[in-house]
């Protein structure tokens, strides 16, 4: 592919001399100047007869350097390259503005398994359907792979490991698109907000910090994670129990979480809980009862998930609970923030109109 220069001005010999007859510098700014791209033309100027193409010369392939024109620079600026990394707010919005998108926020303290959960969902999908759902696409494959790499044999680690999520709120979203195995429905886009545990620890102790996590307010699902490994350790269990509860209470009090939210209570590292003492398991059950009593009536929908994304204990399979968790995201319906009250007929209504609707409409057939 070669670039040919030509000029519409008959007297101009920019093609041979490179100098514009109208004095434009660079010559490309002249309104009569043009470049055309040709395929298969020889680089040898002798191949082109001056009689037929007097103002044409074969230019070398343009090199990309810092001196390219403003117009070229603006074209480059308009073509965002697909990085495969986490999406910023603006990038995520390109998806949310176009299609209904489920926003799932992983919330939990440092090292409770948020990133591992995301990584293992991708690992499970690489092996085949996850429950009834197939991998359809992802705009953040590189971001997923960064989360997965340390858990693979190729990384050289002797045991699976997950990189810590960097602090900050600028590019928190990883994207996943899933489709039902029957392929009857359209694929569903899911954005997962995977923030660092430190952000949530700050949110536990500060309303301002909690308010900064804007994704929670918009979330369809809040996945509140309790670290199973810490819950069975007598010295650590109190903090592991109380901090996520404090976080949830604060979010509800700030009106960031409410009747329109689905809350997935996740006990991570469930293989550790299973191998723990009966007393430790009872502690977890009591915790769930507390959550039920305190929060079920204050949120839209609350479901428990026992998850062993990676299992280090026999008897508990890896990826346990992942399919159910993903199913809860995929199958959930949007919840109304407030129930619209049906009016009570006033006293001037005719008797016939006072026999109100016995409607039992079937939704979502």
């Amino acid at each position, binding site marked *: 592919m070669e670039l040919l220069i030509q000029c519409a001005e008959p007297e101009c010999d920019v093609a041979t001399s490179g100098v514009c007859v109208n004095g434009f510098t660079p010559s490309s700014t002249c309104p009569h100047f043009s470049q055309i791209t040709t395929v298969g033309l020889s680089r040898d100027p002798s191949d082109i007869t001056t009689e037929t193409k007097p103002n044409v010369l074969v230019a070398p392939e343009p090199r990309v350097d810092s001196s390219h024109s403003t117009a070229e620079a603006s074209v480059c600026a308009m073509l965002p390259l697909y990085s495969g990394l986490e999406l910023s707010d603006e990038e995520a919005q390109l998806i949310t503005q176009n299609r209904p998108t489920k926003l799932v926020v992983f919330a939990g303290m440092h090292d409770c398994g948020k990133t591992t959960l995301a990584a293992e969902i991708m690992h499970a999908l690489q092996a085949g359907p996850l429950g009834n759902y197939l991998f359809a696409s992802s705009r953040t494959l590189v971001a997923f792979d960064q989360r997965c790499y340390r858990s693979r044999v190729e990384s050289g680690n002797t045991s699976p490991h997950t990189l810590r999520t960097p602090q900050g709120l600028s590019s928190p979203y990883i994207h996943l698109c899933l489709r039902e195995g029957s392929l009857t429905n359209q694929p569903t886009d899911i954005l997962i907000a995977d923030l660092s545990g430190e952000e949530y620890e700050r949110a536990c102790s500060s309303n301002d910090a909690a308010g900064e996590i804007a994704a929670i307010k*918009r979330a369809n699902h809040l996945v509140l994670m309790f670290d199973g490994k810490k819950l069975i350790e007598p010295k650590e269990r109190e903090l592991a129990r109380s901090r996520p509860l404090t976080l949830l209470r604060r979010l509800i009090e700030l009106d960031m979480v409410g009747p329109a939210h689905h809350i997935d209570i996740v006990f991570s590292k469930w293989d550790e809980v299973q191998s723990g003492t009966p007393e430790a398991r009872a502690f977890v059950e009591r915790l769930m009862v507390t959550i039920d009593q305190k929060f079920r009536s204050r949120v839209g929908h609350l479901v428990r998930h026992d998850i062993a994304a990676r299992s280090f204990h026999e008897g508990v399979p890896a990826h346990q609970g992942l399919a159910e968790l993903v199913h809860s995201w995929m199958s959930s319906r949007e919840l109304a923030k407030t129930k619209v009250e049906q009016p009570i007929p006033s006293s001037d209504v*005719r008797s016939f109109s006072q026999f109100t609707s016995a409607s*039992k409409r079937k939704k979502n057939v």
Partner: protein
Amino acid sequence: MAHEFFAEWLSKAYTTLDDDCCRRRVEGADSLSATASARVTLTLVRLFLGKEVSASDLRAIRNRFQKFDSTFPMRGNDYEIQLLAGAVLAQILASERYDIATIAAMALRSSLGLIGEPSGIPEITGIVDAYLSTRSASIRAVKVLTSPLIRELDIHLRTLRKTNKSLDEATGSLRRETYTAAFDEMVEILAKVAEQYSLCIENDRVISEESNIHWWLTCESLRTVQTDLAAPNWLAIASGRELADLVRLYPGPRAAYNTLRHFIGRVGVEPDEVTSLVAAINGCDRSWRLEWESQWGTSTVLDLCPVLQGVKASLLVDQEHDWVPIYSKILGFDPPDLSTYQISELVYNECIFLAAFNTLEV
């Protein structure tokens, strides 16, 4: 004024919705809801339900929002447009543009009955139900007529006659003044009489609607079909159609759904007995379907009436079940299994929507 949940709804198209963007969208929604014609309103319904709309209609709606925000995207924001359409519809339902609001609400109820709630605004069903219920009760409220007005008019007429007789030519100017005052009062009274007369007509419509429905309910027979009423398939489709035919004011009476259920139960069919939409449509005689379809088959809003589309599709083929793939292709889902009552309710909703639409000049 924008609906109180406007920002909540719009935020589903964003990860973070900034105040300025929200304000500009509110301005666009305000402008659209204040001026949307019935045709534009039905385009908004289609957009909200994710149905196909013409490129020019879609562009016109996008342009309206772009007028208030030059950065509003003209493509690539289909979901945002869907949410905005829903929000504008909610705003119309809260306004006093009753004709347009009624059409919007009836179109939504007609469509939502079978396809379910669209993504983004789960409150819409409640909003539609509340609007229709309130509006139905309000147009059927007992109208208080003030009959003494006629007596007042009579008194003024007598006064006028008496004045005319008692005054002679010399006091003509005084007579003119007296006449003018008396005429002014009479005009006022006549306006009130006209108002009362229109209330009488409205009352008459309501009473005739009620009595017709009561007769229909009492007689336990279908008006357009001579058949065994205990055949649930006829009943599911025909009862909805017949009740809709008896409605004189839109939206229909609040008690319509109870009436339907009661009617189905009275003729010996269990209202909640599950049948299929295919069986219900095929159960109706073909010539009856043809006659019915000739009344609405060319309507431009048939895409918002999923059961009637099934009836229309059933007439495109000769064999009973051959229309099912056509239906599935048009609507994107197979004809579902529903109870007799549910089918009758859907048919009723669709029929009164079509009837109300026909009263408008779109």
